[in-house]
């Protein structure tokens, strides 16, 4: 592995749970998580050179991950077999207390449309409105409006 590959592997290692969480929220089963995760890794690697001129790695990773998830729905699945991820848990099948909490969150977020799912995920990550706006390509004012609308939708679905 050369220096660039090592640096990239380290970067992915640091943000693996973020990428995995995004994949989980946009998937219906573990096979889909595997496919999405690998699609995101490939896209990150392809754009790695252009990223290095930028400053915020977290924003870049979210942009690529959300773009992949939003686009996965509208294009054919990538050909070829996926390499299995090294994961001991199955967020769709496990039944312990923590898994139930995860499933509850998944159910709430999955009531939302794809774009709304992306925005609420960024909000749950604790990103600022400026960061959310930069990732989604909208103004801070619009982020505020979108989040208010999403919260209203969550409220309606709760009733």
């Amino acid at each position, binding site marked *: 592995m050369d220096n660039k590959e090592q640096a990239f592997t380290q970067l992915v290692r640091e943000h693996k749970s973020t990428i995995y*969480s995004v994949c989980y929220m946009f998937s219906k089963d573990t096979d889909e998580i595997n496919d999405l995760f690998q699609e995101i890794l490939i896209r990150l690697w392809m754009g790695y050179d252009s990223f290095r001129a930028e400053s915020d790695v977290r924003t870049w990773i979210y942009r690529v991950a959300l773009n992949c998830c939003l686009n996965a729905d509208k294009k054919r699945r990538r050909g070829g077999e996926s390499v299995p991820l*090294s994961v001991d848990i199955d967020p769709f099948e496990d039944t312990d207390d923590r898994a139930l909490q995860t499933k509850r969150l998944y159910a709430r977020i999955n009531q939302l449309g794809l774009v709304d799912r992306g925005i609420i995920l960024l909000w749950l990550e604790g990103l600022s409105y400026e960061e959310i706006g930069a990732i989604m*390509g909208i103004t801070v004012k619009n982020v505020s409006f979108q989040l208010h609308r999403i919260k209203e939708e969550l409220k309606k679905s709760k009733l």
Partner: protein
Amino acid sequence: MNKEEFDISQELEQMRHDYAVLKERFDKQQIINEQLMENAMKKDVRRLFLSKKTAPVGVAIAILAVILSYVQGMAWWVTLSLIIFTVIFFPAVYWVYKGVREDEIYNGDILSTAETLRRFKKRYIAMESGICIFFFAFVIVATIFMTSMNISTELMWRRGILIVLLCLGTLTFEYYYAKRILNACDDIIGRLKMKDE
């Protein structure tokens, strides 16, 4: 804060808490392994767009076909059709792929990526429709010329109909596929521009 507002803010706090639990669970997992990383970095990804190497090869083949048709003494309308195809098709390819780089397509923000994909797909369909119309016109012209030269037209008609059917089949499939992509892009753009407009 009324009861309803209190409930939703409690709900959101609960979601934030659940999300923290989820991240913690995933943090403890190894997730990535050597094979996975190697695969991502070395695998030859299926190309969504024409590569930079393909376009010059295509231009060379088209020019060679024009020269060969002339040297071989083929009918003038065949050579002319090849020239027209070459002159129109390659600028069209440039127009379709202009501003779209596969290594950067998912690096932009969500709104600009959706707009780029939407523009690309619309142009791609326009180009493909143009190619199909060209072939359709070519078949008609070929039939007219062959008939005027008293060449048996039965086999040619069959081939012509086959080409037209193939064109229509390809177009139908592409329109169906593109419609899904365009609808999805429209949905993303519509949602995100809801406030700004």
